[in-house]
């Protein structure tokens, strides 16, 4: 009940009640856009949102997601460098 699920808003179904149709892994469900609706509702169409007990609670921020993934990748590269450094050290030890 506390876990959200990502879905994509595909159309606005009720402007008064701020409801929209979401596609959640192929399943359609009408959700409330009240938490995320700021400007014109139509602008929500196509957006990925995190859906939680029938409410779109957050718009998933693609730029932030990319930054997080980049940080993770950077970690991988840093790790490689560290490993190479460790290897390098060993090479000296072997030489002795």
């Amino acid at each position, binding site marked *: 009940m*506390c876990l959200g699920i*990502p879905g994509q808003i595909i159309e606005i179904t009720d402007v008064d009640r701020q409801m929209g149709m979401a596609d959640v892994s192929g399943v359609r469900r009408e959700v409330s856009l*009240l938490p995320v609706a700021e400007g014109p509702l139509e602008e929500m169409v196509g957006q990925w949102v995190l859906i939680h*007990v029938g409410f779109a609670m957050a718009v*998933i*921020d693609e730029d932030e997601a990319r930054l*997080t993934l980049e940080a993770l990748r950077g*970690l991988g590269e840093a790790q490689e460098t560290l490993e190479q450094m460790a290897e390098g050290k060993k090479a000296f030890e072997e030489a002795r």
Partner: protein
Amino acid sequence: MRFVEEFRDPDAAKSVLAAIAHVADEIGATREKPVHIMEICGGHTHAIFRYGLDKLVHGGIEFIHGPGCPVCVLPRSRVDECIELAERPEVIFTTFGDAMRVPGTGKSLMQAKADGADIRMVYSPLDALELARRNPDRQVVFFGLGFETTTPSTAFSIQQAAREGLSNFSVFCNHITVPPPIKALLDDPHMVLDGFVGPGHVSMVIGVHPYDFIARDYGKPLVVSGFEPLDLLQSVLMVLCQIRDGRAEIENQYARVVPEHGNPASLAAVADVYEPRPSFEWRGLGEIDASGLRIRDAYAAFDAETKFGVGYGAAAGRLVVEEPEGAACGAVMTGRCKPTDCPQFGKGCTPEMPLGALMVSSEGACAAYYQYGGARAVEVAE
């Protein structure tokens, strides 16, 4: 872009695990002298077990499972009150599925349903609203349960019911908040905690600042985290780096979903509909100041407590219900022991015949151990 697969990439996981091991070694964490990191949220507990992260991380890291499972911290008397409401002939009682199998002192909602009470599982409080529209001659009560993540959904639903003038819809409000029990845990001299992984979906609503006191007053790091394996691993790494560098800050790993100041529309709806109760009882933690919410007088017409005279506010001289014999629910809930330390684990208490909510909730620590630990966990218990 849903960003699910990307955050499950095994290669990336390997490099984060290596980085974790590196920092853990730097700070001298070992199996004998581990760093204790509490994941507050039951959803995180389940993700950790589902992906076996507890086994994959450096041995010097010990996960302490926190009280972030809203059904598990619900005293059994609250379930009894739900059944009392549900057994009224005019009532259609609606609830999230999570609460169905949670034992009360006598029976669970599931058993009450089998005995004839009109209890219906719904996915959303919006479904309960729709039931009320379609059944004008019945009283539809929704069991409002959960932390800051679910509270906005019932607040919006009550506002909607008020706009429509629906007179047969009410909420049995047992909403609770995350920061007060964390403070209670930090004040407990028996707890050894070095840092926290914070519940991302709570912060999606309240932002990151309600946790500032943890860093400022208690000097502990907290990293707000997403729910995919890479999110959790990266958050653990961020906590470790803070410990290594002697920092205590509130950081946000889950920025793709969590804005610094949360969700303004949700916060406004919650403030409009709810106010804090002076105190609220938590299973395993006792009464905690200002840790629960009740419906404001302006919305009393939608408050099942007021409407039916049942529940927390109505119960004069509340009795604290004893735990079932031999059950360690309270200690497990507060991270003082592991589910496998409970004498009833896998014996007197199984998902089919639960003694505590921890065994049946999708976010309960005992359920996570049972489901993903399987035979191994039972062996340990023996």
